[in-house]
């Protein structure tokens, strides 16, 4: 072995230029991810970043790591299959609110429930950006758009509560503009065993320019993380949606990725068929 070389954040960045708009919150998320990986000092080839479809789902190609940009809504099962097949890898799943909570909603529930040791990072901007501004599950009911004139009239989906109720083992909210806080939260999320869910409020300055104000709305959670889901749920359901920090840190055993040590001889499988 060579002497360990200290890996820098820039070592995790690819040289591909993002398709994102100038001012998009996802640039900060990209930076925070590279910083978090540098802090963990995991070699780039032992990391896989898996995504679906949408603006934020473009992130794998902007990282120097293994990546998979799959179909819309199915990032979590892709990441689940990879992690189960290759437990030694660090698997991050990343995407947006439409990808994760609408088309991929069922997978979100079951990934939380299954509690496999992966980290799910959702860049929530409360809008479908790639298709030019339609309401997502986290959009406020009165947000006007061409597809839903006058608003959807629907109550927004609450990702953190759903994650908690479904069994996620780590639940946090961060703001993309807080690069240091996002970095630290991601480091802890990746380190925490089981399914870690991190919602990053990541403004869409093109279709939701009012989200520029998020930077003055966010505030750090005033309390330390709890391992009590009931307390965490109460805290999350009564906050203003801009409370950032680690809101729940559970102690549930992750999904077992153990393998049998002894591998059966192939002929053992045909014996039951013999007459």
């Amino acid at each position, binding site marked *: 072995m060579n002497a360990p070389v200290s890996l820098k954040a820039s070592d995790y960045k690819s040289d591909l230029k993002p398709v994102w708009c100038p001012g998009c919150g996802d640039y900060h998320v990209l930076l925070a991810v590279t910083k978090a990986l540098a802090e963990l000092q995991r070699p780039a080839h032992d990391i896989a970043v898996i995504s679906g479809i949408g603006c934020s789902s473009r992130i794998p190609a902007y990282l120097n790591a293994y990546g998979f940009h799959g179909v819309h*809504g199915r990032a979590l099962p892709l990441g*689940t299959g*990879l992690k189960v*097949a290759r437990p030694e890898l660090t698997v991050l799943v990343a995407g947006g609110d439409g990808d994760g909570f609408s088309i991929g909603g069922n997978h979100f529930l079951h990934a939380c429930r299954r509690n496999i040791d992966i980290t799910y990072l959702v860049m929530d901007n409360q809008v479908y950006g790639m298709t030019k501004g339609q309401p997502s599950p986290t959009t406020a009911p009165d947000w006007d758009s061409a597809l839903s004139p006058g608003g959807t009239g629907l109550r927004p989906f609450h990702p953190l509560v759903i994650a908690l109720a479904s069994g996620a083992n780590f639940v946090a909210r961060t703001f993309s503009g807080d690069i240091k806080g996002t970095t630290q939260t991601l480091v802890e999320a990746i380190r925490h065993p089981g399914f870690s869910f991190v919602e990053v409020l990541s403004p869409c300055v093109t279709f939701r320019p009012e989200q520029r104000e998020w930077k003055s709305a966010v505030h750090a959670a005033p309390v330390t993380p709890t391992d009590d889901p009931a307390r965490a749920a109460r805290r999350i359901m009564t906050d203003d949606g801009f409370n950032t920090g680690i809101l729940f840190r559970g102690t549930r055993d992750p999904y077992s990725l153990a*393998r049998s040590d002894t591998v059966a001889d192939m002929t053992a*499988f045909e014996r039951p068929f*013999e007459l």
Partner: protein
Amino acid sequence: MTAGGLLLDAAGKAGLYGLQTRSVGPQIRGGEAAALLRLADWPVETHSGAFDLLLALDWSNFSRFAAEIKLDARSVVIADPVSGTVPEIVTAATQNIVELPIKEIADNISGGRVNMVALGLLCGAIGLHEADLIELIAGKLVAKGASAIEAGTACLHEGFQHSTRLDAVTAIGPERRQTGERRWLLTGNEAAGLGALRGGVRFAAAYPITPATEILEWLAPALARAGGTLVQAEDELASVNMIIGASYGGVPALTATSGPGLALMTESIGLATAAEVPIVVIDVMRGGPSTGIPTKSEQSDLNIAVHGLHGDAPHLVVAPVSLADCLFTTQWAVHLAEAMQAPAIVLSDQFLGQARMIVDRPADIAFVAARRRTENPDDDYARYALTPDGISPMSVPGVAGGQYTADGLAHAVSGTPSSAAEDHLAQLAKRRRKIDEFVYGDHWADIEGDGDFVIVTWGSTAAPVREAAEQARAHGLHIKTVAVRLLAPLKVAALAHELDGARRVLVVEQNETGQFHRYLRSLCDLPADTRAVHHPGPLSVTPDEVLGEILKEHSL
């Protein structure tokens, strides 16, 4: 159903061949059910013609599957008078109705059961040894205790005693054939599971669906013992993506489903095509469309398997040509998918999957997963490099310097998304090339016989076609059968070679529209005298039906 299974077990022990299928109603448990068996001293692979013997324990709802239980004047029907009137559809077919008080016999035995009495009757009628059967029953009932074995033995004995009244039944056993070969008793779903395992599959994702679930249930403990894993998914969208994820990680992966599940998976099978991730999806076909007939067989998913993906998406579609061939074809599918880094769909069906059959032990084959990998990628490694055969060395997570992003977006050789025409054309062509130019060998079809009368078929209808052709040859006709195993890409030149000089061609399959016939027409120049023979499930294509078509053609 238990008695039917034991009868097949007993026939197997006695050196016979046979198969057992079932016809059941929609009830989750209980309800009307028929165990259909065919036994012989040669390897039978399909039901044929009228049943020699029908034993009815309960006539209620018989009409629901009467069409699947063909009887004729030679058929013997055993009926218990307390089960009610013999249905008209039965008495119209045969006069040979033997009344036996099966329930009364069972009731006179402490712990007695009608199905054990019935089993004794049937085994006695076909000439099996009572002692062998008692030994078998003792083994099966050992967990239920001595009193159960005693009751079962007494029932069997009474059944054997009463079987003397069934002289009209043709006895075939026991030990008519002394086989030197080792024989297996298994279902096609089990054979497919074994083929997957032998081929190197070490990850499966599972969502339950009739009639494919048994593949997954067989694989769950088997994979654990083989150092692999199975995950139960939340839906088929998840299961197909889980296997794509696992295979992206370098582990050969498979899922099994039926038509509705395949429909859900098609978008992601396209992803596996575009991102060049090998996967195997077994579709155990059932009656369609929509929920259709989950418990009954039909070959009606050919269209979706071959044409269901959006975009130009070359992939592999294979179909086993017999129950035992579920093993070979699944193992081969794993090999092909891995070799070409492409998805392979295996079209099994409910008959192949759920029939239990006594077969000669399938030959061991060498096909295993062998993916072209790179372990030492250089600085300019390009995941989707344009190679002469279209297959690009694949790096997997863990390999230093091989980092790339697999993508369903059109991409350049590096994997970087690209909407440029030249990249799209180059990648489309490479993916087409690797599938079209691969050397598949002789396995594209099983070909038997020779002659200018050719029957082309696929999947489970191959068995009745083979049997009909055998019978036709006994009539002195020269018939060739071509059972196509590799459905996509279709080996057009090889098929043309087999059809060269053919005067008459029949294309036989089990679906309403003749999907295979239309597919062949779209790609091949078939001889002028080519006729499509097909009907939908649940009625199976039978050897005598095919023989009738052959003789009809021949008399023209």
